[in-house]
């Protein structure tokens, strides 16, 4: 602490009024506050077991005394290993190859003049082209469908149509055939069953018949029956 005088003199010079004030702090602390404070603080300090800072490892005696010499020896050995064999040391490091005159001159490595790129005009796609593409795709799909799906018109199937069977009077011809033989034939060749079934004089109304059939059954029939 500096002497009081110095601070008093400074304050006296700055403000005699303030210097004349009593240096008394008007606040009060509770009774016995300072007497109890050390134990209050020590209670709040968490008890910690002091950590032993000693390291349990050991080093050989006088290890550090000879350590600088060890390092220097290691450095010298490493430098000796890096040295070239005597044979190579006697050879000049100059390259025996030559290059054409002016090969490394600056003109040679001048960059070619940059080409001015021409702007490319983007033509707008006309709307009729889109329609043409759409029409082509539709046509392609239609042809594919015609080729892939079964045809409902004239059939190349060897089974007879209803009109053909009627004109040939197959019903009369089959009346002489034994029923057992017919059943066996129908079982063996299910495609022909339709022909055998249609041996009737009445015209079959296909639309009405199909309408009566449940859609699920019809789907099953189409899946199960080979075309």
């Amino acid at each position, binding site marked *: 602490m500096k002497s009081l005088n110095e601070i008093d003199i400074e304050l006296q010079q700055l403000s005699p009024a303030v210097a004349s004030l009593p*240096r008394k702090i008007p606040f009060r602390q509770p009774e016995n*506050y300072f007497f109890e404070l050390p134990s209050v603080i020590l209670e709040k300090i968490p008890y910690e077991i*002091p950590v032993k800072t000693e390291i349990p490892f050991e080093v050989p005696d006088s290890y550090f005394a000879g350590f600088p010499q060890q390092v220097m020896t290691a450095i010298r050995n490493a430098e000796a290993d890096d040295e070239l064999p005597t044979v190579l040391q006697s050879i000049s490091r100059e390259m025996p190859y030559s290059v054409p005159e002016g090969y490394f001159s600056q003109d040679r490595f001048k960059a070619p003049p940059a080409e001015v790129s021409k702007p490319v005009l983007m033509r707008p796609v006309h709307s009729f082209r889109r329609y043409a593409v759409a029409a082509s795709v539709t046509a392609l799909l239609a042809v594919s469908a015609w080729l892939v799906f079964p045809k409902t018109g004239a059939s190349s199937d060897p089974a007879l149509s209803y009109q053909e069977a009627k004109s040939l009077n197959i019903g009369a011809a089959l009346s002489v055939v034994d029923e057992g033989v017919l059943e066996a034939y129908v079982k063996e060749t299910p495609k022909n069953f339709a022909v055998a079934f249609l041996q009737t004089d009445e015209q079959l109304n296909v639309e009405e018949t199909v309408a009566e059939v449940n859609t699920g059954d019809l789907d099953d029939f189409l899946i199960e029956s080979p075309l």
Partner: protein
Amino acid sequence: MELGDKELLQLFRQAETREKAFTQLIEKYQQKLYWHIRRMVIEHEDANDVLQNVFIKVWKALDNFREDSQLYTWLYRIATNESLTLLDQKKKRKSVSYDDVETGLSNKIIADKHFDANKIEWKLQLAIQQLPEKQKLVFNLRYYDEMPYEEMSRVLDTSEGALKASYHHAVKKIEEYLKNH
């Protein structure tokens, strides 16, 4: 007999004398630090909280304390920072400006059960509360703790010239306040 700081530190570093040394350290500095804090935060409860935090921090950091600076300066530095932290926290909690905190501190002085508006020492406390934070700190350290500028510059991390200027401004403002009130 009161031990010197170096002896206290030596005792603190030995496990068997650690607590005893720390108790002596608290006894040695508690009053100076308490009044330094109390003049800043005004209320005893706040001063008590800050002072306890200061000593708990000192306990944790004393092992790493470098003896190239004075223990006394280091303690004041911690106490100052902790006090300012408390005032900042109060300011944030209430979302008020520093001026409002100052007004709040003046109100706390007036609310003290021992407050006497006719007594000059209370008027002086009200005058100090009108000062900006830095000037208040400088004035208190110089006027009440009689701290040399050199040490103060270590506590507050400010040049001696700037501290002198702050002190001069503070004294003039206090003088002006006392004339008008």
